[in-house]
């Protein structure tokens, strides 16, 4: 039971990182971006590519399975994922924005997600890959609870990221502009805010978080081109539970989905685990469509 709780929190924190990026872009750009999950795949594989170029996996840090090169690879992955997001926005989403039919842009994001996944498949192949071959030994932290040092790193990193993002949104001018844009784009422009610049930064932040989530996820599971796709439903469930545009809500939503998935094995056969986020999504949409932290009014980025 304790082990399942710990596993749930770990999966949940990775889902949370991905969901923060998704909730920000959904709140500010106002469409459901199905390609966001593929940013996670792209980020994870870009880090793999960067690691391959940096040479052998040297000197792991302490008890972790990886060393400094992985951190550098994570930064490179964030940059490359941001570039991909900006390119997709420029080529696909921006030309479609403001069309009378909002569904066009949503469907185009489906197309983009297929394209990105296939490009990853083409470059890296479909077989499972790993960042590291180092064997890690789980550390017992409590009776019946063993945690890998990598998992602790994932958890710590997520907490630091969420807190920094919160301060960024609350304390900086760009963060304030992002929250304003999420509530009322026209009024933001009237206030002298160049919304194109703010939107670009939103993509960069969302994509970077997705890349980080991808690398952290890659540390705990094997890399396959489908990892993003399998996170798609949990991500959307987390965003909708938390209320679209609500960063704190996305974190709570991610943890709820992660915990529900890992605790579900006590009630239903493990093979049905993947259906859990779907069921949560249905319940939330039925009972409280605006999410736990969403207001009846359009939620801004908080």
């Amino acid at each position, binding site marked *: 039971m304790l082990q399942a709780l710990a596993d749930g929190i770990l999966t949940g924190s990775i889902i949370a990182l991905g969901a923060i990026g998704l909730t920000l872009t959904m709140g500010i750009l106002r469409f459901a971006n199905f390609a966001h999950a593929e940013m996670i795949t792209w980020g994870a594989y870009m880090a793999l590519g960067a690691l391959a170029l940096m040479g052998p996996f040297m000197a792991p840090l302490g008890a972790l399975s990886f060393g400094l090169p992985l951190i550098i690879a994570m930064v490179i992955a964030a940059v490359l994922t941001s570039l991909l997001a900006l390119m997709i926005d420029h080529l696909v989403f921006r030309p479609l924005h403001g069309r009378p039919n909002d569904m066009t842009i949503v469907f185009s994001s489906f197309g983009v997600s297929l394209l990105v996944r296939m490009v990853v498949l083409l470059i890296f192949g479909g077989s499972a890959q790993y960042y590291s071959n180092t064997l890690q030994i789980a550390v017992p932290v409590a009776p019946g609870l063993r945690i890998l040092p990598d998992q602790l790193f994932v958890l710590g990193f997520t907490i630091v990221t969420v807190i920094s993002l919160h301060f960024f949104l609350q304390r900086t001018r760009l963060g304030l502009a992002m929250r304003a844009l999420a509530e009322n784009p026209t009024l933001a422009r009237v*206030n002298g805010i160049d919304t194109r610049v703010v939107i670009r930064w939103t993509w960069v932040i969302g994509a970077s978080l997705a890349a980080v989530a991808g690398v952290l996820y890659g540390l705990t599971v094997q890399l396959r081109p489908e990892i993003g796709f399998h996170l798609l439903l949990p991500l959307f469930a987390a965003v909708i539970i938390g209320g679209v545009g609500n960063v704190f809500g996305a974190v709570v939503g991610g943890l709820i989905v992660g915990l529900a998935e890992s605790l579900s094995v006590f009630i239903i056969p493990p093979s049905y685990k993947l259906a859990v986020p779907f069921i949560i999504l249905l319940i939330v949409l039925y009972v409280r469509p605006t999410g736990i932290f969403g207001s009846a009014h359009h939620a801004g980025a908080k």
Partner: protein
Amino acid sequence: MSGHLFQANNVVAGYRPDLPIIHGVSMHVDAAEMVTIIGPNGAGKSTMIKAIAGVLPISSGSVTLAGKDITRLPTHGMAAASIAYVPQTDNVFTTLTINENLLLGASSLPKAKALEQVGKAYDKFPALKQYRDKKAKVLSGGQRQMLAVARALLTDPHLIMLDEPSAGLSPLMVSDVFARLRELVESGVSVLMVEQNAKAAMAVSHRTYVLAEGRNRVEGVSSALAQDPEVIAIYLGAGGRKR
């Protein structure tokens, strides 16, 4: 070039370029002048000031401020060009605090200058200070209007445009808002406002433009227009609309 502070010449504009609502409207505002735009529903009053503010595209005609062409300036460039606009509805960010609303209004200024201007805004509108860290959604209609005007003034604009500043306010609040605007004009700022509350607006403004069906209908000194039989019949008399 004429000597008017603000000038709009033959402006054609609308929500879609192929469906203009304004069919060649011209108007001007002088320095420290208060000008009202009135007209029946659908006359294109709001469309006109939205087009000037850059919120709606202008398909032909020109707009100048202090001799500078601002016709094609993007919306976010207006604040820096010294023109401010207060929309009729949704004119404050309800999910942000009062202080954040004000900081946003100073987005086009360097940070130090922005903080200084926000400080001045609290001096000018002391009632806002007590709500500093409250979300704007707690404010009443009149307080929101005050915040919206305070926000618009942060960049020290030459011209402030307001879309129905009296809409939804109690009669007492209406005279308060108009008195505030009058003070602004006395301090040298020009005001261009759209109003349904024609009588009250004409009583405080220097000149008035009457629009109908997207065109200039009548214009003149407010006190004279208020006596004009046609204007009285349509807007101020028994047939006049009162909100």
